[in-house]
């Protein structure tokens, strides 16, 4: 029988020395859902997705992704997940096509399928004319597009996207958002997005969780989250949850450094 939950985490924790990057995280994300993990810089979002992708091992707790244990079934977890890391993780000395071929090979995608997919991605992201340039000459946004293609090349069942639109121009960001919407609607993928951009969360996510200092503070649909703190938009709710004192942020003197 197919596991109903795409992601199940129980008391998942990660310590770096004394610093607790992720603090007993519990998650239950059903298949086909788009989940948004929101939080300020250093909240533990990247650490969470790295844990869920078996890239790092948890200090305590456990998790299952698509029914596979992240500690004992690393291979299955990695084969079935797509992970887009926040900083462009690619080889500067390869061309876009070479790099995508390489990643396709790593996931043992058949050669003909790899080439077909690469053609489609390059067309979709408007990179056809640059496909034979070395990646070192690409702009950050272009690199991001290549990385996103690399994440999708083995058609993973579940996608982990760490700041997917951070470096993109508005039009490219739109393409990525539509892509994610389509992946969920038409291909029934599960998507896990880490972001600090609230418009993404509002538009794409069925459920959002807000994390700070490794602790998951609240979880629910965007509407529920807003309702819980009597906010009328997500930004308001976000700052209320992270900054309980009513005007904590606005009291600061932002020019004191002069």
């Amino acid at each position, binding site marked *: 029988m197919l596991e109903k939950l795409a992601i199940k985490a129980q008391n998942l924790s990660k310590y*770096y*020395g004394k610093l607790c990057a992720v603090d007993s995280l519990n998650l239950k994300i059903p298949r086909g859902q788009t989940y948004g993990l929101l939080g300020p810089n250093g909240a533990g979002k990247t650490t969470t997705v790295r844990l869920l*992708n078996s*890239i*790092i*091992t948890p200090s305590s707790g456990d998790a299952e992704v698509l029914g596979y244990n992240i500690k004992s079934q690393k*291979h299955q977890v*990695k*084969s079935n*997940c797509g*992970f887009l*890391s926040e*900083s462009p*993780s*690619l*080889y500067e*000395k*390869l*061309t876009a096509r*070479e790099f995508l071929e*390489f*990643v396709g*090979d*790593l*996931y*043992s995608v058949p050669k003909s399928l790899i080439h077909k997919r690469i053609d489609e991605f390059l067309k979709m992201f408007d990179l056809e004319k640059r496909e*034979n340039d*070395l990646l070192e000459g690409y702009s950050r946004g272009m690199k991001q597009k290549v*990385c996103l293609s*690399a994440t999708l090349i083995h058609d993973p069942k579940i996608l982990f996207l760490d700041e997917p639109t951070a470096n993109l121009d508005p039009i490219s960001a739109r393409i990525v958002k539509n892509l994610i919407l389509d992946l969920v609607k038409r291909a029934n993928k599960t998507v896990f997005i880490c972001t600090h951009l609230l418009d993404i969360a509002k538009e794409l996510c069925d459920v959002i969780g807000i994390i700070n200092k490794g602790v998951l503070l609240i979880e629910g649909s965007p509407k529920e989250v807003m309702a819980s703190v009597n906010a009328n938009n997500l930004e308001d709710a976000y700052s209320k949850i992270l900054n309980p004192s009513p005007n904590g942020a606005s009291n600061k003197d932002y020019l004191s450094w002069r």
Partner: protein
Amino acid sequence: MSLWIILVKNELRIRTAKFKSHRKLFFITIFAIFLFWAIYLGPVFFNAVFPDILSAFSGVLELVLHFVIEYFLMTVFIMFILYPLFTLFRKSEIGIKDVILSSPVKPGDIFLSEFFSQLPFIFLIVLAVGPAAASLLSQVNPQLTIVHYFTIYLVIFLLMTFSLIIGTILANWIEFKFSSNKRISSSSNSFLLLLSFIVIISFYLFHYAFNLAYNDPVFKNWLSIFPSFWYSNIILYIINPTLIQSYIVNIWLSVILAIGIPLMVFFFSYRKAEVFYSYEPQHEKNLIIKEREGIFFKFIEKMTLKKYRIVVMVQFKNFLRKKENVTKLIYSIAFTGILGLFIFLSLDNPLTSIKDYLVGELVSIPVEYFDILVMSIFSWMGGLIFGMMMGISSIFDSKDILYLYKKSTKGVNTSIYSFLYLMTHLLLLYGIALTIFFAILFSLNFVVVGIFFSTYIIYCFIIVVQLVGLQCIRPLYGERGKQIYFKIYFIGVLQVVSLLISLFITIPLFPIAIDYSLGFMYILFTNMGISATIASVMLLFGLFKLNRTD
């Protein structure tokens, strides 16, 4: 296809990015050229040159051949085991990309791929220098054919491969222990020190044991189980089967061991890589204890000119807080120091007597100049070791850092000058320590102490400047791999070339009855002048290039 093969392919693609549109042609051309040299040109050249050179040694060669081959292969074997230990922690400084970490590759795949992507380059090196070795052997046995030559190349290549994988496993295992064992990682400084001493002392001990064993037939027979002998046995057998008649490890056993054991090591290192190899991104703990750091850095700060103070201090901290650099620093000093100790201890062992025998035939050196000779050789070798270790530490951690200097008002040259400044600080500190050690060890007089100190510092500095010049032309942005090896080989060859040039210049100019020490000084200073000139040209050109990179 196994994933490690894909990784190797990718690694080779990255290395040959310049030729991306005609990689196949590039590989075929390179290997064709090297093969032509190894099979035809090289042997013809050396077979023409050697007889003249070797006529001076006629009779001696056959006598010492046995010893030389076994000794040489053992040294290569040990050197290649130790080599990865010298670049310890480089990997954890750089890390592995997320694309790879999140894909279904296993530790074994990454380990084997890192190893195998080195092999084509090693093979090229063997093809490049092999003809010299094989031609030397054919002076003893003129019946050697191309097949024999190629077998000799293969044997050397196999030996290097085997020892390199042992070294790589060892180095990774040590890094693994450092990252996973709490007790070790909390006192990593002292462990590193201990480790480097163990490594270096065992290196010298091996040589010592080898020399001892050579005079003791029973011990010798047991020693021949040591891996490098499997390989030297094959070469000796090719030259003359009777040479290995008395060994327990006969030719068949040698061949089986020489091929079988490496294969087994490969297989197990692939299957069991998670035991010694970690690819999880590491959280770096500070190597140097902060409080002690404070006093030391205050002192250095005081010693620095105001104009450079801030940049030098920043680079100094960035430099010393990398575990990799501290390891290399410890190694380079310990290596030179223990080299001295070893020579001191073994002044009357069999190896030196052979050296004496050979040297005695050609030139005799009066004892009183021995000090100066030995100390100058130390400073030359010590300079080479220090310079090569330190010159390959990356000045710019990334391209962003380079741009940071470029956009600042001080300009990019400041970063280079400050790096050299920082090297001078290190050099003075270590130079003094080493000089005191040698002065006490050999009970040297003032003149020799002065000569050693100044030549050591100057040689170290020259090599560092040469490598910095190379780095300016093509910066090492904390990357790993062939870039570094290439720079090291280049500098090594450059030293030999400048030494040869200085010999060619000075020797014909000598009056017949020159004072030995004076003649030696001539050579020393000429060599220094040539190396320094090369270094300045490289640095100036490097700075020129660096100001124009974008």
